[in-house]
């Protein structure tokens, strides 16, 4: 059966950002269907679909919803994570700008399922256009009784949606960092437990979901969990911890390809197919040197690993941190991995929130070492030192509160493991100049 895109299906329709056009194309029918069910039934449908969060961690959405304490007097909050800041990732922006009501319909359905009375869309400040489009769409919904009190005549279903604009910090994409930021504080991630589903925003039960995740919820209501499970990759029978990668996914493709863009494909497409069939191949007739499978923090895949399926499991098998946001960045064979890794380290050093010492100091230290290597003043030992630092920071070694440091470490680990010869050559060849420089400095 040919794959039929659903998330991007309506993007080309003129005026789809307006409520009447959206409704003319079947909009808000999924919400009507949801309101015929109990909230528990909606949660069950999403559990049955196998939907996993699209924001990076891939946690099962229905299971997350199930963590909200039963019979909580409320209020319960839904936070829409639209802080999309992972380098290479832009699918949330495409959804919000292109089809805002699809996102809002998914949000309203999800709020109903978790019994939330307020939803906050935390959107990064840089997404000015998306903000204005969403704001207009929300105003339309209030005017037509799709937000506010007793939505669509359903007694007792009240929901307000507010947009909250960020102020330029990557860490606000981490769910508890987002919550702190919403509360008007510095976005320092919280120690868990308690998890947000129990004690989140304003100390009340809170669910934080990514924009694309919520858009998927709408389609699960419309087409059923079996449809969702018919797309993607079933669990690996040899891996008892794999729960499968179901549904459509918005792959972002950027870097050295002929046709960068956002492509909706079944989970599990290979990197090679994505680059060659959809991205039109590497630009200027060059070859792939490396790719990043799912946003910068996932680390690198080499050109030998391009047949890896981009599902939640695939990138793990080649030493990457995971599928992440499924944002593929292509690096051609004329690019220096030293430059690429320096860029990566600089990003994470800049975005470390400074709360945990290993992350704050480790990311800055790795950046300094790479800057020195780049200047031609590196030592071969620096590579092992970089690995040692990378292995010591993050939630995997257990030295930090959130995963930012793991995201900083994985590009370092994978680049040095997979491209060690290039780093060694560069250090050897560039040092011949710098040795003289050093000695001169010493005599002075």
């Amino acid at each position, binding site marked *: 059966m040919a794959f039929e895109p659903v998330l991007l299906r309506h993007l080309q329709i003129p005026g789809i950002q307006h409520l009447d056009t959206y409704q003319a194309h079947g909009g808000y029918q999924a919400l009507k269907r949801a309101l015929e069910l109990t909230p528990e039934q909606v949660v069950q449908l999403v559990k049955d679909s196998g939907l996993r969060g699209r924001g990076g961690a891939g946690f099962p959405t229905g299971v997350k919803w199930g963590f909200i304490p039963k019979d909580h007097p409320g209020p319960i909050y839904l936070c829409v994570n639209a802080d999309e800041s992972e380098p290479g990732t832009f699918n949330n922006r495409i959804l919000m700008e292109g089809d805002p009501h699809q996102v809002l319909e998914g949000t309203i359905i999800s709020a109903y399922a978790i019994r939330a009375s307020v939803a906050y869309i935390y959107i990064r400040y840089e997404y000015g256009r998306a903000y204005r489009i969403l704001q207009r769409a929300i105003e339309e919904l209030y005017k037509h009784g799709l937000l506010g009190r007793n939505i669509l005549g359903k007694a007792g279903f009240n929901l307000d949606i507010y947009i909250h604009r*960020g102020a*330029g910090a990557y860490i606000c994409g981490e769910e508890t960092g987002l919550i702190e930021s919403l509360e*008007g504080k*510095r976005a320092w991630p919280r120690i868990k437990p308690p998890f947000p589903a129990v004690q989140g925003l304003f100390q009340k039960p809170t669910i934080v979901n990514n924009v694309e995740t919520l858009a998927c919820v709408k389609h699960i209501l419309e087409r059923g969990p079996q449809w969702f499970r018919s797309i993607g990759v079933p669990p690996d029978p040899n891996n008892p911890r794999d729960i499968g990668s179901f549904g459509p996914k918005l792959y972002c493709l950027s*870097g050295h390809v002929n046709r960068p863009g956002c492509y909706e494909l079944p989970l599990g497409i290979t990197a090679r197919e994505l680059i060659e069939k959809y991205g039109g191949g590497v630009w200027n007739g060059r070859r792939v040197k490396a790719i990043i499978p799912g946003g910068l923090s996932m680390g690198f895949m080499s050109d030998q690993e391009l047949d890896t399926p981009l599902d939640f499991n695939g990138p793990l098998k080649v030493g990457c941190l995971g599928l992440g946001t499924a944002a593929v960045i292509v690096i051609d064979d004329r690019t220096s991995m030293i430059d*690429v890794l320096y860029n990566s380290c600089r990003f994470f050093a800049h975005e470390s929130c400074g709360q945990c010492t290993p992350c704050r100091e480790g990311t800055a230290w790795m950046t300094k070492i790479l800057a020195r290597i780049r200047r031609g003043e590196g030592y071969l030992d620096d590579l092992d030192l970089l690995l040692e630092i990378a292995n010591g920071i993050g939630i995997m070694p257990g030295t930090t509160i959130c995963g930012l440091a793991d995201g900083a470490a994985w590009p370092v680990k994978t680049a040095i493991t997979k491209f060690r010869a290039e780093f060694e050559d560069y250090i050897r060849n560039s040092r011949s100049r710098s040795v003289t420089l050093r000695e001169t400095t010493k005599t002075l």
Partner: protein
Amino acid sequence: MPLLSEDLRQAIEDYTRRYATRQAALLPALHLIQERFRCVPREAIEELADLLDLHPAQVHDTLSFYGFFRDAGNPLGRFRVWVCRSLPCMLRGGEEILDDLCHYLNIQPGQTTADGAITLEFAECLGACELAPCLLVNDECHGPLTQESARQLVAQLRRAGVQHGV
């Protein structure tokens, strides 16, 4: 005479109704203030703290975390131009565009042109990688750019900025 005008206070007060705590209105309030004054003056911090039942140090704690807000010693120009330097843009010439604009405007990232028209900034990933290399003018994205088209865009903004005054 307070610095924050009555309409600004009302707008901030309106925001507080959206949240369970008054402190949660802090970021929206800081955005309103910086839009108005092109920075967050010290008096505004004190008045805002008063308005939101916070200590001025709490306001400063939050605002200093986000690199977005400026103090009175370093106000924004009429247009804030953010040039992306993250990997997807870097691979397609983003860093060269940033260097070139520094040279062209004769300022470093973070600084404002002497005529007050343009504040130049480096940005981390703007979330528009299909348009790489790209830049943001205030909160609107432009791309894909070349060094020439980036210069043209900035020249246009500069003329507009000087005409409208700062």
